[in-house]
């Protein structure tokens, strides 16, 4: 029986495969160790002094977009503008006037994470960062 396991052009094929693998994995090893560090949103002095946000920190971190959506709907649709949190503290439901009043540095607080996560909320197309307005 003839040996049919013979590989034609072995040298070229293996070399080609090596080059192919190197090229296809290029983005991975080229960027190795260069990943942008996870940004830490910087709290303004006023936010630090307040200690607690509308809801506990963990909840705000994960659910702030849901809260903002609820706020938006209750303010616009139901004309209710006062939010009483579980500990009984009252807030005016306003992105520009309540959230940004404490979190004064939008660029270091909101944008830092949003840019990292590559999300572009369109809040700021209409809602004003009081700092930018000045």
């Amino acid at each position: 029986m003839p040996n049919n396991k013979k590989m034609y052009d072995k040298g070229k094929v293996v070399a080609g495969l090596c080059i192919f693998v190197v090229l296809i994995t290029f983005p991975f090893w080229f960027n190795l160790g260069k990943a942008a560090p996870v940004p830490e949103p910087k709290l303004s002095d006023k936010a630090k002094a307040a200690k607690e946000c509308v809801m506990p920190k963990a909840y705000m971190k994960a659910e702030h977009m849901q809260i903002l959506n609820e706020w938006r709907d209750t303010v616009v649709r139901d004309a209710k503008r006062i939010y009483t949190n579980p500990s009984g503290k009252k807030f005016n439901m306003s992105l520009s006037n309540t959230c940004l009043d404490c979190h004064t540095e939008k660029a270091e607080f909101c944008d830092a994470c949003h840019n990292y996560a590559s999300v572009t909320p369109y809040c700021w197309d209409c809602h004003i960062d009081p700092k930018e307005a000045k």
Partner: protein
Amino acid sequence: MKSSRRRFLKIAGISALGLGTKPVLDVMASSGEMAAPKTTKGENALVAQRWGMIIDTRKLQSEEDLEPMIEICDKIHNVPKFENKNHEVKWLWEEEFKHVFPMQEQDFLGYRLKHMSFLTLCNHCEKAPCVRVCPTKATFKREDGIVLMDFHRCIGCRFCMAACPYGSRSFNFRDPRPFIKETNPDFPTRTKGVVEKCNFCAERLAVGKIPACVEVSKGALTFGDLDDPESEVRKVLRNNYTIRRKPALGTGPSVFYIV
């Protein structure tokens, strides 16, 4: 009782089940403890069944009388000023008799009416056609009669502009921000591609203030609850002959004019 393997296993199984439910019950109990957040109206919020306005044109003789009202409205609501008339954004504006009251023109109309400027705004109609046609329910009628816009929901189809017989709605053909002289940080701007109009100062009513135009009108405008027979607007309506814009269309405007 005779203890057997079978019996022992039965009791062990039931006990395990009992212990297993404890964490579940704990979670349920703790979620009940944290009071749910509440949303309420502000303490000073002005409420009504149906907000309405009366414009006493006898007290608004010249354009200079209208200017302060239009100015304050544009300023607090971040209304842009476009050079191009086709791009104009109007909340509160002036118009001549023949455009405000077409079909209500008489022969030999008095000089004063023919040549004066009338204050025009969204009529916050009882049966608002803009609300009917809006495909996304971005425009809706609030419980207190205000026809309000949810800019978040507006897709810019402009059906409402076609439906409104009063031209009270304006479309943002371009980004309005560069065309706002002084931005009021307390009120959002709009963005390109949404329709906007007068909101009867809903944001001011929520904090107990009457609309800004009424406040600076020196008594020419009256604002109040049309459903309350004792309200100021009803008193003025009782004592004066008033007309509304395009009554034959059956939209039921909430803005009345004393001419």
